[in-house]
């Protein structure tokens, strides 16, 4: 039975490789990508309502199911072409990021975002994140999709990393290929404490004064 999401609720977004990755790192810019629309032109993405998944383990189970479902769909698509899904194209659940429902943008210039509890496929905690673009024109609409995805991503916290038991021995899992750090090093908040060996003594670029280094 769907419930009304309130300001007290928390929403989790599962990090699925390779969708939420730029090659070998997870980055904010691809946490929310509104890919396809329904018959009414509304774009849908999924999230998890923590009220029904209070433990990290609960979200991990949901994420693992999402990856499995996407892999099954991929297998069907490839099978139609007489091919197997390449190992590098398989989906892996890698963890999740949370945000307060109250903090999330519900509208912006040219778009509306509606977040509703929508249990589906036996997943009680499933949340539908529906994007309605209210402007016309192909590029105008695509630009709003980009902006809406970035706006949502701005509010999600650091990843809670997880490797599913079913992927434990899989050498193609991102954690096997690049280590668990692949979830963190691409995030914008990863840079402030960055130490850069080799250029510590550098002061400024020759011929200019618009760069400074602070210690």
């Amino acid at each position, binding site marked *: 039975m769907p419930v009304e999401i309130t300001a007290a609720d928390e929403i989790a977004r599962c990090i699925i490789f*390779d969708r939420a*990755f*730029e*090659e*070998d*790192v997870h*980055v*904010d*810019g*691809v946490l929310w*990508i*509104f*890919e*396809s*629309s329904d018959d009414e032109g509304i*774009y849908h993405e999924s999230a998890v309502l923590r009220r029904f998944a209070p433990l990290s383990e609960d979200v991990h189970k949901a994420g693992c199911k999402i990856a499995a479902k996407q892999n099954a769909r*991929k297998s069907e*698509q490839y099978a139609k072409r007489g091919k197997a899904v390449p190992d590098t*194209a398989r989906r892996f659940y890698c963890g999740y990021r949370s945000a307060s429902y109250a903090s999330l943008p519900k509208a*912006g*210039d040219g778009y509306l975002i509606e977040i509703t509890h929508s249990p589906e496929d036996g997943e009680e905690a499933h949340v539908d994140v529906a994007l309605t673009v209210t402007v016309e*024109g*192909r*590029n*105008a609409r*695509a*630009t709003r*999709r*980009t*902006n809406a*995805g*970035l*706006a949502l991503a*701005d*509010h999600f916290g650091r990843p809670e990393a997880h490797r599913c038991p079913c992927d434990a021995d899989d050498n193609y899992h991102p954690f096997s290929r690049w280590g668990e750090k692949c979830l963190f*090093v*691409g995030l*914008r908040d*990863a*840079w*402030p404490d*960055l*130490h*850069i*060996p*080799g*250029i*510590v003594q*550098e002061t*400024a*670029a*020759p*011929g*200019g004064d*618009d*760069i*400074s*280094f*602070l*210690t």
Partner: protein
Amino acid sequence: MTHIIQNSDLSEHWSENASSSSERMTISPWAHHNRLRPLGDKDRVQLSYARHRQMILDSSSGNENIRPLYMVRTPQITGSLSVNSSANLISTARKYYSAIEQQLNELAQDEDEGIEKGAVDTALVVLNRLISKNLAPPALSWHGGDAVVMIWALGDTTYAITITDGEIGYVVRRKREAVDMGDSISLNKFILSDLR
């Protein structure tokens, strides 16, 4: 050590309607990953904004008003700096651009995530403009089957241009707000780095 950059609001360079700013901005060191180019440990790169700027200066002529737009990923530096580092940077940037170009070409033919050819062709034109102006390579994304997105992330600021068939839109986000946005700009009117 933290790097701070002044006077580098990329939005100034992105359209004829752009605003100016002298805010100080910070740089994320990992914003240039792209999907297709596998990175081994030996390819791990680090930020060197000064080197990127030097690269831009070295590759320009005259007294142009050049502001560095963004970092490039530079080869791992473990010891003293090479006197030839700007040349290395140019080489690195070229490799990235080649990888992005290849990625775009493959994207148009990808059976899973195919993007319509018009969007890819337009993105390739934009990419060539980026190259010709020695701007740092973007991260690449796409959505909806009709849009290619190029993203640069600079600390608390994100710049994204969304490219569809023959048209370009852009958004500049800072501190969780869209501070500048435009769309449906025809390819021949979209201006990059006009201050040069």
